[in-house]
């Protein structure tokens, strides 16, 4: 049997083993969602970084860098790094508030802060929609990798990995997710650095790489791809990427799950530093990829660039290792999403609206059932392969930013924000973001609406939330006391 497949099978078995260990350790809902609120900075850093790096990075963004060169820096890399700084700033506060108010999910925070069960439902619904798109991206990424590297059909790859990650998320919840994320992050940061060390001499070092890029197409060295990307368009993506990080459900949950505020900040500090090293390697890998595969017409689309480089230019053993690492990156992200969806659905919808008297055991059972249904639905959607990852990603981050920006930042830092103000902020942000997104996808958007939808949704929702907060009844002091 091919060494690549053997490595991959061993890898899947190890991950399932860790999932089973997590299952044995999971007794309560708090264990399932938040690892019993005992996450330390090292495992936290691994799970934060592990969740952050996914098929979007390896397949989507290396593909983007392959096609558009150094434009990857302003379009993506800077946005991520600024996002980590914002996350470092809010993580301590989120941790303190979650511990003080016994908040299990980010929706608990929105509900408690604004004394509004509507906001809990609203934010939960948008989380589930956003994450279903995200999961589809991950599955497409996995499918492309396996199609190109191992040569197994796209559909089979999507189904096999879909089942493996569902199985182990199902078993343990956050405890196994946090541990496997940390293990997986170690695997793929080592693989990325090995790939970086291997590829650099192939392209003649950084200078040689840039000289080759200039001869292939001078636009590859331009930050705007020779003016193809307008500065406001780049700013739109940067803004969405940077702001989605601190208010991303998975990262809020991780800040809440750390055992104290210092561990939370340690998690972000250490995780971000590891990610910085990782991203510098990714930029070089993306640019080298173009040097090695110069003809843009030779691939079906940009998502195939990195897997093609791995299979055509890397030795077999290294290719197998990278494949396992890529599988790791995808799995460590998808498991977190599944966990969020299971816990949101069970905690924020089922227990809240359908069966408030349900026992912990019953809610845990519902979380697991929802997780299976959701995984099956996204596997089916991924099989249709709607577009290149980078395109779906831009669509996806709207769901992550537009409904939450106003209520997240004003909720944390502005005491005068009222319940009605927050409802208006959350609803207007979501409606404007989704409407512009839809117009752009359907190619019906006028040129004045051609930038990233968050650039319209965020300022309008913030202004509306401030205006409405000034003219409506302030929240009772006993509510505010808990959150400030």
């Amino acid at each position, binding site marked *: 049997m091919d060494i690549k497949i053997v490595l991959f099978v061993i890898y899947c078995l190890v991950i399932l083993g860790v999932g089973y260990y997590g299952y044995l350790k999971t007794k309560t809902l708090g264990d399932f969602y938040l690892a019993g609120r005992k996450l330390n900075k090292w495992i936290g850093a691994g799970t934060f970084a592990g969740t952050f790096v996914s098929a979007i990075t390896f397949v989507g963004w290396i593909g983007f860098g392959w096609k558009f060169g*150094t434009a990857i*820096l*302003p379009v993506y*890399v*800077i946005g991520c*790094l*600024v996002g*980590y*700084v914002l*996350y*470092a*700033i809010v993580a*301590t*506060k989120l941790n*303190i508030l979650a511990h003080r108010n016994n908040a299990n999910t980010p929706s608990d925070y929105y509900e408690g802060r604004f004394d509004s069960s509507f906001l809990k439902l609203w934010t939960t619904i948008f989380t589930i929609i956003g994450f279903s798109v995200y999961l589809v991206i991950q599955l497409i990424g996995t499918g492309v990798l396996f199609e190109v590297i191992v040569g197994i059909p796209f559909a089979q790859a999507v189904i096999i990995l879909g089942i493996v990650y569902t199985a182990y998320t199902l078993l343990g919840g956050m405890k196994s997710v946090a541990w496997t994320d940390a293990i997986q992050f170690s695997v793929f940061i080592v693989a990325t650095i090995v790939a970086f060390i291997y590829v650099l001499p192939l392209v003649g*070092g*950084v*200078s040689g*790489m*840039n*000289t080759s890029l*200039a001869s292939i197409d001078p636009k590859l*060295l*331009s*930050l705007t791809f020779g003016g193809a990307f307008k500065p406001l368009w780049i700013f739109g993506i940067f803004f969405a990427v940077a702001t989605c990080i601190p208010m991303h459900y998975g990262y809020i949950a991780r800040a809440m799950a750390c055992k*104290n*505020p*210092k561990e939370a*900040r*340690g998690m*972000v*500090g*250490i*995780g*971000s*530093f590891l*990610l*910085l090293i990782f*991203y*510098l390697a990714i*930029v070089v890998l993306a640019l080298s990829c173009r040097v090695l595969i110069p003809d843009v017409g030779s691939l079906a689309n940009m998502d195939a660039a990195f897997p093609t480089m791995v299979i055509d230019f890397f030795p077999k053993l290294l290719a197998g290792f990278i494949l396992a690492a890529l599988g790791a990156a995808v799995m460590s992200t998808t498991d977190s999403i599944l966990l969020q969806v299971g816990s949101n659905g069970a905690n924020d919808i089922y227990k809240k609206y359908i069966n408030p008297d349900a026992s912990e055991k019953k809610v845990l059972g519902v979380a697991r059932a929802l997780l299976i249904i959701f995984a099956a639905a996204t596997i089916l959607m991924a099989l249709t392969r709607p577009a290149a990852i980078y395109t779906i990603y831009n669509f996806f981050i709207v769901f992550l930013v537009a409904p939450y920006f106003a209520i997240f930042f004003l909720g944390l830092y502005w005491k005068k924000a009222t319940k009605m103000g927050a409802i208006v902020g959350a609803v207007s942000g979501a409606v404007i973001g989704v409407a512009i997104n839809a117009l752009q996808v359907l190619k019906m958007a006028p040129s004045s609406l051609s930038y990233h939808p968050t650039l319209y949704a965020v300022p309008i929702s913030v202004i509306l939330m401030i205006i409405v907060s000034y003219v409506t009844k302030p929240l009772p002091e006993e509510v505010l006391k808990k959150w400030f």
Partner: protein
Amino acid sequence: MTGPWGFTTGAFWLLVLSVIIGVLPLLIYLNDLRKPESKEEGE
């Protein structure tokens, strides 16, 4: 208008800026470590 290693000047400085921004969260944490424990709750 080329910067070090054949990057354009803009790309080179953006890389430098990336590194500076990238270490900020770690610096924020290290700065936290120097503060006494009791100050944490007051945030």
